[in-house]
């Protein structure tokens, strides 16, 4: 017997190496041609607590996490207790013989016989690899790639224990159906959302990143820092978020395409800077990786509750764009797009992601960089007519941008109201012209808006609508709900501002029941769409317990209400 898909969950304390096991399995699965969706859940601590690393793997493309667990790898007894209710029919729990767990659906692994304590994650890796049906060589290669160079002194030992554990498991006659071989085997990348944002930024020509560490945004800066010397950029840890955004504004003003990754609390500190980017017309990409608030909330969990914060951030009125990628691929392409829109509209552009997608590794097609362009940072040549003015008024609202110090011209910019020369003014007629000039730039942003993605049946009986990282969940829920008598469609917003009603209002109006699915308690997208179009959603499926929305969650919620 073989399974079409397996949902594996590794649970244990922080410091037990479960992420290492998870990552090596993920790598081996992707290299073997499988699609995966990783969901990580962890406590805000470095040791102890209860953490999980879940991999859903399938030979077919999958896009959402699943709740039912087929293979539970319990690195401590607590994991068994916490997750036994989630085990699927035919599911199996892997425990240490020392736990003395009694259940016929348990595989008791004599960890200490197979390897010394510090190698117990290699033991788990060997056992699970066999059960999944992975080839030993494939897993061995992943292990060697990760640690062969880093810890050569234990490389041989690692390999030996891996082999022994794999073989040990093969002799147990465990009743568990392994994964059916992948049918569409080709080279794919294993990448999570934050890695894709960093890669997208690099491909766009990012030159400057300033940040203050905050989960789940930090890894964007760390991924950029790891490539800084190769790609020629500066990544600086600022003294606080206020400094971070103002540094990036300074760098961008001087001509370095800049990105600022942060999360809700840090972003709240940045909002005056957002307004400065709007007023000074400085391009800036800000990534807000959401986690549950208010205040410090649940620092390591997920939520989609900062749409309204980002939309309204910064005092005064100025245009902005907000992207909300739904997949790892979208993280890459929309980050590139964010840089383009920021450069074109000369102002702040946002990427809203969250802990779920930040940490969710997937198998993706390699990005084709052929022919991609890096972002244009203004006219750099020395040929400008002098004197140069930073803010002349044109129909589009966009003033040609020169960089300071790149010629004899002078660039005067700032956050006080200004006439075209950028100096201070309190002339109220100038004020009116300048407000209108800045706001006209929204038309440029609107012209570039990524339309929401409409999928599934046309004129459906049931339409599931969402934004950002909940995309996969509505797609898979829709597939489950669709049958001969029910037509089901989906609508996903990968850009939540500006909204262009012509792109979606008819779809909403033509559907039978329209349900907005979001990871927050207010139904923030639903409220926004109502405000902008007058359309009232018929139902809302909301989640705000810190976990990502799954297809099962949607199905349960629809049954109940």
């Amino acid at each position: 017997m073989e399974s079409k898909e397996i949902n594996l969950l590794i649970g244990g304390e922080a410091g037990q190496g479960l992420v290492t096991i998870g990552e090596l399995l993920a790598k081996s699965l992707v290299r073997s041609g499988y699609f995966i969706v990783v969901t990580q859940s962890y406590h805000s601590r470095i040791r102890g607590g209860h953490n999980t690393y879940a991999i859903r793997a399938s030979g077919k493309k999958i896009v959402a996490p699943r709740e039912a667990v087929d293979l539970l790898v319990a690195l401590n007894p607590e994991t068994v207790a916490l997750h036994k209710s989630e085990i699927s029919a035919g599911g199996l729990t892997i425990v240490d013989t020392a736990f003395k767990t009694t259940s016929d659906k348990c595989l008791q692994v004599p960890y200490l016989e197979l390897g010394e304590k510090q190698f117990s994650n290699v033991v788990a890796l060997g056992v699970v690899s066999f059960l999944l049906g992975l080839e030993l060589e494939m897993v061995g290669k992943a292990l060697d790639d990760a640690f062969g160079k880093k810890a050569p002194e234990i490389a041989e030992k690692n390999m030996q224990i891996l082999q022994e554990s794999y073989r040990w498991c093969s002799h147990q006659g465990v009743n568990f159906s392994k994964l059916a071989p992948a049918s569409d085997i080709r080279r794919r990348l294993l990448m999570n959302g934050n890695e894709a944002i960093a890669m997208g930024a690099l491909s766009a020509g990012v030159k400057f990143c300033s940040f203050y560490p905050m989960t789940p945004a930090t890894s964007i800066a760390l991924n950029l820092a790891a490539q800084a010397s190769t790609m020629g950029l500066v990544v600086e840890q600022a003294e606080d978020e206020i400094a971070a955004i103002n540094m990036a504004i300074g760098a961008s003003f001087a001509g370095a395409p800049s990105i600022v990754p942060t999360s809700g609390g840090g972003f709240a500190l940045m909002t005056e800077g957002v307004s400065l980017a709007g007023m000074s017309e400085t391009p800036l990409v800000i990534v807000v990786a959401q986690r549950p608030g208010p205040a410090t909330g649940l620092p390591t969990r997920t939520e989609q509750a900062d749409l309204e914060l980002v939309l309204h951030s910064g005092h005064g009125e100025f245009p902005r764009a907000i992207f909300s990628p739904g997949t790892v691929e979208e993280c890459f392409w929309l980050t590139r797009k964010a840089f383009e829109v920021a450069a074109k509209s000369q102002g702040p552009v946002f990427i809203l992601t969250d802990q779920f997608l930040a940490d969710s590794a997937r198998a993706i097609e390699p990005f084709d960089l052929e022919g991609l362009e890096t972002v244009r940072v203004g006219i750099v040549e020395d040929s400008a007519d002098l004197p140069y003015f930073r803010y002349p008024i044109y129909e589009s609202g966009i003033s040609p941008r020169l960089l300071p110090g790149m010629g004899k011209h002078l660039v005067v910019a700032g956050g006080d109201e200004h006439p075209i020369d950028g100096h201070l003014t309190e002339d109220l007629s100038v004020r009116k012209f300048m407000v209108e000039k800045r706001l006209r730039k929204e038309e440029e942003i609107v012209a570039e808006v990524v339309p929401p993605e409409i999928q599934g049946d046309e004129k459906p009986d049931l339409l599931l609508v969402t934004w950002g990282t909940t995309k996969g969940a509505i797609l898979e829920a829709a597939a489950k709900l669709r049958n001969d008598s029910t037509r089901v469609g989906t609508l996903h917003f990968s850009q939540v501002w500006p909204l262009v009603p012509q792109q979606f209002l008819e779809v909403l109006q033509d559907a039978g029941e329209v349900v907005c699915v979001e990871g927050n308690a207010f139904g923030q997208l639903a409220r926004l769409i109502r405000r902008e179009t007058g359309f009232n959603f018929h139902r809302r499926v909301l989640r705000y317990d810190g976990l990502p929305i799954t297809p099962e969650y949607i199905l349960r919620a629809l049954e109940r209400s």
Partner: protein
Amino acid sequence: MVSIEDYGQFETAWCPGCGNHSILEALKRGLVDSGLEPYQILLVSGIGQAAKTVHYLKANVFNGLHGRAVPVASGAKLANQDLKVIVASGDGCNYGEGGNHFLAALRRNIDLTMIVHNNQVYGLTKGQASPTTQEGFVTKAQPEGVASLPFNPIAVAVAMQASFVARGFSGMIDHLAGLIKEALAHEGFALIDVLQPCVSFNKVNTFAWYKQRCYKLPEEYDPTDWQAAMQRAMEWGDRIPLGIIYRNQRPTFESRHSVLKQGPLVRGKTDLKKLEKIMDKFS
């Protein structure tokens, strides 16, 4: 050759008799004496009376938020090291609202010149206490007199071994222009705290008050002697030392950064071939 006329003449919004006029004059002279042309410099300010300085001479300018001049200047300098970047803003802006950035700048040692117009009061918002206001100073916001101890920027900078720490007085323009020239020539973060009478809101620390107390450091004073510098930094009251109080040759942030060592970021090109290789590591 650049001349003072190249920096232009602008109408200012300052009170007659305000120390800012002289600081502006000294700044222009310092720039001219350094042989710098307007297009080679970037002036960054925050918000306040002092912060308006950047609008009164020809240069590249970024006039940002209250308290945030230093981070903007830092980012701009890292993006284009060819620019001479100068921060000009008030004591409230730099030591109060921007206090954390001031501390970080002392540590980072990016090649910036920071001129703090220290009138020991908030001018623009009409006379509230600033971080450097002296104890007991009565304002409408502090009707019982300021109870906090004044911030000593010089002592903090010397304690942090900032690479260039100086004090000037707007009433001694030649001396101040000389300090600005030295600061511009210094590689690394240079602080010049400038005592500046505010004729409208500071009736205690007046021109005469400063004039009576300020003295130039003697010729034989050695600004590389940290112990001696610390002593001078603590001197305030009857006598106030002016000049370069402390300096060292700490390496700049830029000189330690592998990418910045190769030249200005703005002139760097993105090599997508290299990115291709980086992405291969994800397979």
